[in-house]
């Protein structure tokens, strides 16, 4: 599965930030056409993003575009213009499987017209209704991950974001909805660009909650988040022992894998593989 530990948001109306976005090693670069672009610049930003996707070197970063939501007059044109040049459409304010179907239909149309491979979709859950339907949304074959947005969701709930007590539940629901479908779960952005220690704790907490990555808004955050998502030495050591035991069991034709007298189930072996794969990155 593709690594998506960091998703670097870049305002789609800022050429200077767009042209350097690929330099910093984010797993994902999201060129944003939605909230960071004022209504008066929607057209210009779309053109800038379209040409940047074709001409700027984004390195190893996966190229996402956060288009405008399907409740706006911009989203269809966004898809029409940029879909052939990006890897993933990031669709905000998704509330139901119908919303994904609507976007999917338009994407399929453009893909057919251009003769290109199907692009992926990552919905952003940021309303109570969207949260309620998250498990269904995650079932769509085009969806590869679920992301969520705290600001709009708490506003929808009518509670202040900083005092919201429900967010751990929201996070758990997003993770469960995504993982039940073997999709990735992506935590929301950490917006304090000065406080790297807190960012590290935030990212590590996201990892242990079951998320595969978080959103970042500044390139300096990337290295910290990647460090937080790197397995600890103890975890790596344990995973090595498990894989070794699994290989030995296979070689000896044993049906049961055991380590230090403890039985090891297949999901544990799978987790060990993931840990070792993650440890080898960077």
């Amino acid at each position, binding site marked *: 599965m593709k690594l998506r530990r960091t998703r670097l948001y870049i305002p789609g109306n800022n050429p200077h930030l767009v*042209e*350097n976005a690929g*330099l*910093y090693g984010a797993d994902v670069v999201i060129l944003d056409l939605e909230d960071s672009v004022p209504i008066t610049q929607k057209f210009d930003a779309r053109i800038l993003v379209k040409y940047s996707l074709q001409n700027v070197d984004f390195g190893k970063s996966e190229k996402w575009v956060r288009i405008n939501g399907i409740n706006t007059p911009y989203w269809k044109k966004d898809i029409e213009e940029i879909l052939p040049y990006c890897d993933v459409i990031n669709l905000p304010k998704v509330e139901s499987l119908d919303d994904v179907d609507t976007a999917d239909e338009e994407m399929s149309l453009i893909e057919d017209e251009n003769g290109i491979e199907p692009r992926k979709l990552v919905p952003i859950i940021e309303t109570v209704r969207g949260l309620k339907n998250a498990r269904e949304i995650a079932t769509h074959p085009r969806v590869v991950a679920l992301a969520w947005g705290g600001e709009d969701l708490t506003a929808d709930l009518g509670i202040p974001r900083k005092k919201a007590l429900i967010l751990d539940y929201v996070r758990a629901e997003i993770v469960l909805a995504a993982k039940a479908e073997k999709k990735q779960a992506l935590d929301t952005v950490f917006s304090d660009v000065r406080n790297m220690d807190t960012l590290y704790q935030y990212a590590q907490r996201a990892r242990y909650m079951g998320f595969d990555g978080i959103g970042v808004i*500044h*390139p*300096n955050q990337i290295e910290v988040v990647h460090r937080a998502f790197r397995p600890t030495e103890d975890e790596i050591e344990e995973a090595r022992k498990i894989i070794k035991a699994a290989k030995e069991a296979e070689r000896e034709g044993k049906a049961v894998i055991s380590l230090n007298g403890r039985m090891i189930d297949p999901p544990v072996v799978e987790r060990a593989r993931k840990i070792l794969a993650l440890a080898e990155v960077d």
Partner: protein
Amino acid sequence: MPINAVGREVPSEINGQRFKPFAGDLKTPPEGRRAGSLIRMAPRGRSKVVKSLEEVIKKIGLEDGMTVSFHHHLRNGDFVVNMVMETIRKIGIKDIRVFPTALFPVHEPLVPMLTDGTIRRIEGSMNGPLGEATSYGAMRETAVLRSHSGRVRAVESGEVHIDVAFIAAPTADPYGNLNGVDGPSACGPLAYAMVDAYHADHTVAITDHLVPYPAHPISIFQHQIDYVVPVDKIGDPQGIMSGTLRITTSPSRLKIARYALEVIDRVALKDGFSFQAGAGGISLAVTKFLGDLMRKKGIRASFINGGVTKYVVDMLHEGLVDVVFDGQAFDLDAVKSLKEDKNHIETPLAMYGNPYSSGGIVNMLDVGVLGATEVDIDFNVNVNTHSDGLLLHGIGGHQEVAAGSALTIITVPLYRYRVPVIREKVTTVTTPGEVVDVVVTEHGIAINPKRDDIIEAMRGSKVPIWDIQDLQKKAYQICGKPQEPKTMDDIIAAILWRDGTIIDVVYKVKK
């Protein structure tokens, strides 16, 4: 005009004085004997304290056409240059050759003196308005720019003879012992002024902190100082000291610093190594990251040559480095450390890097990390002019650090304000590609092909390695091909290599 070793057409004569074309680093051997100054005497009982600048200038007998020197240890907070030159103007002395180490935006009041007959030319670094005015043709004769050590060489060799050295002294006693570590205008070392104190025919210390005899510590000694002039203020502390300089938060600059660090780590980092520190945004980040890496790896440096800042001082006091050589202090931590720590050593500029001496500190440097306004595909570096042709910066110690260091790294963004920094040809050659080893940008690095050892050491690194021509093409691809500066045929400045040969000239810019 002859073509020099970097392919630039240069004159044989500047302001009536003969100069050789640049032939390659240290390819032009020195000749002759060191120059001397007027022998003076100071009988017991004669006071050196003079009440005003006007009085001291008259006492000395400064005349039309003479050379006066200044030093930039008060940087953009300096009051002394303006004060002295205004006095000279008022007295009506004309055709002065001004010989500063460097001038800053604060010295803009000298601009009208370029045209009113007071100043015939400036031989020294001009950062900002004076350089700009010179670029547009305001100076009657041709400016001559030398590196810090090249300036020392010029004085010692007699290429420039100083009639009067005016030395800003943060602390002085009535008999001319000076230091820079005490007083309201403390700046740290007085390293730049030392050669002038020794070689000028007349020397004047100007101070706002007159202390009883003997002042101590002593940076410049009484037997070299003829007069002491007390004034209210020699400078503005805000402009002299930078405050604690902060590491850049720009992600692209931090990327450059991290790539530079990786090169240092793979090529030069070992116990007892040495490096040149600076106060620019990227240099500061490299110094900080290098300290972190040394701590992690348990490595100790033998010395840091600076450009001293809090980051360098912290490394000294933590035991990460044995000695700090200090030619210039940038913050109060550096000043305090220079005063209190015997391992923090004030170094005369002659010791720093004069190529025609018995060996400078730069010859012992393992790593030098330097900036640039432009770099070209032959690794030539420009630090003097912008791509519009305007002369806006001095050379500083760029040439000697690049030439002396075993590993010379140039850190630059690929482009600034959509103008390529990596180009086919630099507007002005300050430092030749033959002494540049690695160019580091936010997109990756380019290694000088003649450095096989560095190419080998970087094998397997995750830092992207480019052919410098591809880096240049990348810059042009993003920004387009840069326009040529709109210049005329008149030469407004000569850029000397550290050995006194002409490496390039700067042309007048059309307004």
